């Protein structure tokens, strides 16, 4: 995982990415017990480009040239399937902008905040997300006011209550 972090940080330094943040199961693992996952999900903010379509071709080509081949929807970096996901809605974009820098080994990595991670799980709403919400609420350190503010602004309060988070304190 260390190599993937170095590659991502390098892409930001080189201006190929505006920013990034780790999401998904690996981000959850920063805050709660380890959860079984196989992908390193990375949300991206790309530099401004012409046109409205998001094009990752140059990014994939650059990574391929550096020895990180594409495999299905992933790029293999140091043996890890890394899924590069351009921020696809305002919640994800905010989650990347407000991500925290955490240490992994001796590198710093941008990770989605716990409250944004919860909101993304609520928004995504797959069975595994709903299960993870319950465990996350119990195990992770999170800020109730910050979470409720995010849920309200992104219209997710009802879904959160429906996912069993109504009694969260």
């Amino acid at each position: 995982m260390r190599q993937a972090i170095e590659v991502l940080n390098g892409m930001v330094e080189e201006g190929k990415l505006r920013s990034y943040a780790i999401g998904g199961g690996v981000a959850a693992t920063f805050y709660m017990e380890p959860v079984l996952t196989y992908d390193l999900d990375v949300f991206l903010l790309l530099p401004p480009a012409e046109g409205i379509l998001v094009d990752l071709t140059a990014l994939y080509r650059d990574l391929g040239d550096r020895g990180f081949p594409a495999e299905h929807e992933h790029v293999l970096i140091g043996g890890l399937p890394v899924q590069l996901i351009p921020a696809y809605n305002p919640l994800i974009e905010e989650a990347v902008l407000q991500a925290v820098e955490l240490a992994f080994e001796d590198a710093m990595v941008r990770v989605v905040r716990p409250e944004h991670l919860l909101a993304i799980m609520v928004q995504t709403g797959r069975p595994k997300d709903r299960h993870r919400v319950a465990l996350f609420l119990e195990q992770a350190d999170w800020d109730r006011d910050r979470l409720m503010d995010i849920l309200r602004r992104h219209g997710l309060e009802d879904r959160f209550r429906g996912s069993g988070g109504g009694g969260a304190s």
Partner: protein
Amino acid sequence: MTGFEGFPEDRIRQDRERRRRLARLPVEEKIRILVELQELAASIARSRGRPVRRPWPRPDAS
């Protein structure tokens, strides 16, 4: 006393405490455990003839 689905309550409490202890481990240790989970899942899938998802390299091997 029994709790959820007939499980003894102290067993449920112990499981919850174990999960909280795991949550407080350093993230590097949690990633090592994650890779062990992937290896375990691969072994089970293989024994059942199911498609196997490739585990990550062990962190100390990279």
